[in-house]
């Protein structure tokens, strides 16, 4: 079966293509740790998670609630966190945001930013507990990493908005 010819009267890309594009963008963000720097402290933000949050907070219809599991698996394979930490924490984050959505009916970008900052903090501390012994002196540097990541959320939101806008533009 061939795909229907795109209409000349400006139809946006299909919902399935939109989801796949979103997942692709998140997977690209997870590739951040391959930058050619050997860091002696963790300072790179979990950019895959920031992009996932940006898509989810933009519109709940783009990525299903279970999307955190496969995307988290990809992130775990690249980030050096123990395998499974992003699988469970990213999915749990998406579930919690769904619950929040029914409580907070009206949220603006500031609330989105706050939700993203909390989610990043929970993920980084959760992964730290899973990966390093409690006696390691990494809490201070992780705090700095959280601040860097939270400061970068608007960039992630802007990137997702830009990509989504191109897809939804009438062609």
């Amino acid at each position, binding site marked *: 079966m061939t795909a229907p010819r795109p209409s000349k009267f400006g139809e946006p890309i299909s919902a399935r293509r939109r989801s796949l594009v979103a997942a692709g963008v998140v997977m690209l963000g997870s*590739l*951040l*740790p*391959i*930058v*050619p*720097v*050997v*860091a*002696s*402290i*963790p*300072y*790179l933000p*979990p*950019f895959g998670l920031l992009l996932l949050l940006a898509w989810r*907070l933009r*519109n709940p*219809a783009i990525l*299903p*609630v*279970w999307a*955190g*599991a496969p995307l*988290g698996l990809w992130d775990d*394979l*690249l*980030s*050096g*966190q*123990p*395998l*499974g*930490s*992003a*699988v*469970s*924490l990213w*999915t*749990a984050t998406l*579930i919690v945001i*769904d619950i929040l*959505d*029914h409580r907070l*009916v009206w949220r603006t970008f500031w609330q989105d930013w706050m939700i993203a900052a909390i989610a990043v903090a929970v993920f*980084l501390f959760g*992964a*730290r507990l*899973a*990966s*390093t*012994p409690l*006696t*390691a*002196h*990494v809490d*201070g*540097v*992780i705090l700095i*990493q959280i601040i860097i990541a939270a400061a970068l959320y608007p960039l992630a939101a802007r990137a997702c908005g830009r990509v989504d806008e191109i897809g939804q533009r009438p062609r």
Partner: protein
Amino acid sequence: MAPPVASRTGFSRRAQYSVFIAYVAAGVGVVVGALLVLLSAFDPPAFAALRSGVAEITTPISSGFHGLRRAATVPGGLTDYFGGADKIRALRKQLADEHAIVMRARTINRENARLRALLRARDVDPTPVVVARLVNSSGSSARRFATLNAGKFQGVEPGQPVRGPEGLIGRVLETGLNASRILLLTDAESIVPVRRTRDGLPAIASGRGDGTLDIRSAGSVNAAFRRGDAFVTSGTGGIYPPNIPVARIMTDARDAALGQPFANPDALDFALVQRAFLPALPPPPTATEAK
């Protein structure tokens, strides 16, 4: 504008079921993820094959970017020309001062070689396995891993020590075909037996996770560490060959002190993989073989 709200299903049974199934799938994802974390905690190399499979693809990309970074870095030699005459004078003075020490060291060296020949001491020669570059690291994780641009094809095996020109970098943890994962010295789970160069005081250097090392005395109680004390590997434990520089003490302390590693893994330089100092012991004979 009010944001779109998640999944109002209305009366459609089909929509209700699909939402329900999505939540069940998400719940299963959370539980499976938690189980995987537990599994990784008890058996860290469990998913090494998966990880190194991904690393096979990403390492060439990283390595290409690394080449670009090296090409774009300004050579540090330019600034050396400023105040050149003063530097030359200082170096000449230093050379003259150290001439006597060098002469004495040469004599001791010769005497040492002669005595060793008399004793027929058998030296284990740390032969290099491969020279490669560290191309990236786990920059977003609390663990300190780096990726080496060489793997099984080049003879790299888990447990081999990795050193740079200035000192010890870490050891090989997992190997793929063309890429391997290095546990850096500064990782919170890295432990290296060391000794002080000055008097041979045995100590343990363990990573703290924030780029420095904890150096604890392993021999005498109440050992004093002075700022600037240098530590090298002792060869105890069999992985690291002796006499590789490890760290320098940063502050005066007793029993345990902060150390700054000599090697900078981010230097645009090569890393040398060596054979494990002593080969692993053969497995103990089983009951059937003993009969």
